[in-house]
C-alpha cells in the first residue's frame, strides 16, 4: 500500500487538464479524475482556473458552498485554506473555485505558481481545470503544472486544437503529456464514420491514457452534481481506468462493444451480406 500522506515536499503531482477547444470534456475529466483519485485515498485539490466562466463547482455539485475563490486568494482577501471547499462525500477531496464576476487578467501565471506551491504541502494531487483557448487563462493554468492531460474528441476541429495545445505545452517544457479521447462512439467507428482511438493517437503522437465512450450517464451525473467515476456506467468504468493509469498502473482498455446486443449482432450479419 502506498503512503497516503506523503511528506516529501516534491512528491505531489500538479496536473493540468486542457484541450484548446471548448466543450470536449475538460471539466468532466477534471471532476472524475480528481474524484477517482480521492476515492483511492489520495489527497486531491481541484482548481478551477476558468475565471469568469466557472463550471467545475457545478459539475462537482459544490456550487452552494462557495464563499471565497481563487481571485480572493490571489488578492489576499482570504487565506488559501478559506477558499478550499471540502467535498463531504470523499475525504481528502477539495475544490478551489474560480471567480465568476472577474476576468482572466485578475490572475497572473506567477500568482498561480505561488498558490500551487502552497497547496503542494498538503496535497498529493493538484488538478487544474484549464479554460478553452490559448490566451492568458491557458497560460495561468499551465504555469504551475508539471504534467498535462490533453482531452480531445474524435473530431477534426478538436484534434486540430489539441495538436496546437500539445505544441504549446512542448514549447513550455512539458515532458509528460497524456491523451484522453472523449465521446468515442464504437458504432460510428465501425461504420467508418468516426476516427478510432488508434487513428487519433497516430495523428497526435502522444501517449494514450484513456478512452471514454460517449455515454448519456455523463449528462445525468452532471445534472446531479456527482461525478460518475467508478460506477457501473461505461464512462464511469473508463474514468476509473484513467485514474489507475494516472497512478502509473497498467490497465487494459475496455471493450465498448459489450453494449451491442445479440439481436444487433444478428441483424448486423444480414446488413453485411
Amino acid at each position, binding site marked *: 500500500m502506498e503512503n497516503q500522506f506523503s511528506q516529501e515536499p516534491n512528491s505531489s503531482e500538479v496536473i493540468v487538464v486542457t484541450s484548446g477547444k471548448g466543450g470536449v470534456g475538460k471539466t468532466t475529466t477534471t471532476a472524475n479524475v480528481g474524484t477517482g483519485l480521492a476515492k483511492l485515498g489520495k489527497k486531491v485539490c481541484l482548481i478551477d482556473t476558468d475565471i469568469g466562466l466557472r463550471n467545475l463547482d457545478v459539475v462537482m455539485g459544490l456550487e452552494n458552498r462557495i464563499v471565497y475563490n481563487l481571485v480572493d486568494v490571489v488578492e489576499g482577501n482570504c487565506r488559501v485554506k478559506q477558499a478550499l471547499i471540502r467535498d463531504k462525500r470523499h475525504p481528502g477531496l477539495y475544490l478551489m473555485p474560480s471567480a465568476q464576476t472577474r476576468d482572466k487578467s485578475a490572475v497572473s501565471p506567477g500568482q498561480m505558481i505561488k498558490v500551487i506551491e502552497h497547496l503542494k504541502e498538503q496535497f498529493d494531487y493538484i488538478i487544474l481545470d484549464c479554460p478553452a483557448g490559448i490566451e492568458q487563462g491557458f497560460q495561468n493554468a499551465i504555469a504551475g503544472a508539471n504534467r498535462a492531460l490533453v482531452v480531445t474528441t474524435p473530431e*477534426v476541429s478538436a484534434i*486540430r486544437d489539441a495538436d*496546437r495545445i500539445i*505544441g504549446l505545452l512542448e514549447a513550455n517544457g512539458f515532458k509528460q503529456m497524456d491523451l484522453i479521447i472523449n465521446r468515442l462512439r464504437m458504432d460510428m467507428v465501425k*461504420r*467508418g464514420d468516426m*476516427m478510432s482511438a488508434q487513428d487519433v493517437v497516430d*495523428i497526435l*503522437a502522444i501517449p494514450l491514457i484513456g478512452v471514454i465512450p460517449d455515454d448519456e450517464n455523463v449528462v445525468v451525473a452532471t445534472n446531479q452534481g456527482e461525478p460518475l467515476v467508478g460506477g457501473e456506467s461505461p464512462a464511469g468504468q473508463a474514468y476509473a481506468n484513467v485514474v489507475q493509469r494516472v497512478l502509473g498502473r497498467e490497465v487494459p482498455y475496455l471493450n465498448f462493444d459489450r453494449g451491442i446486443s445479440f439481436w444487433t449482432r444478428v441483424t448486423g450479419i444480414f446488413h453485411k451480406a
Partner: protein
Amino acid sequence: MRHFFRRKSSCQVAKDRLKILLISDRVNCSPEMMELIKADIAKVISKYMKIDADNIEIQINTKGTKSGRGAKPSLYANIPIVDVSSDMTVNR
C-alpha cells in the same frame, strides 16, 4: 445500402484533411504564405520552361515517416509543364 455507393469513408476523409491541416499548422505556414511561395516558384520555373501556372499544387508533407511529431516536413510542388522548348531552356 448507402455503404455501396460511398467511395471514401468520412473517417478517412477526416484523417486525410487532418494530415494536411496539422502539417501546415505545425510549420506555422499560413495559406497566404503558401500562395506567395507558389507564385514565386511559378515565376522562377517559367524562366526556363512553359508551365501551367494556374495548376501548380504545393503542399508541405512528411515523407515516408509517420505523421507524428518530430517528423521532418518537406515541401512538394507539382508543376504541370506545357512545353519544354529548346530555345527557352538555352537562351535565358
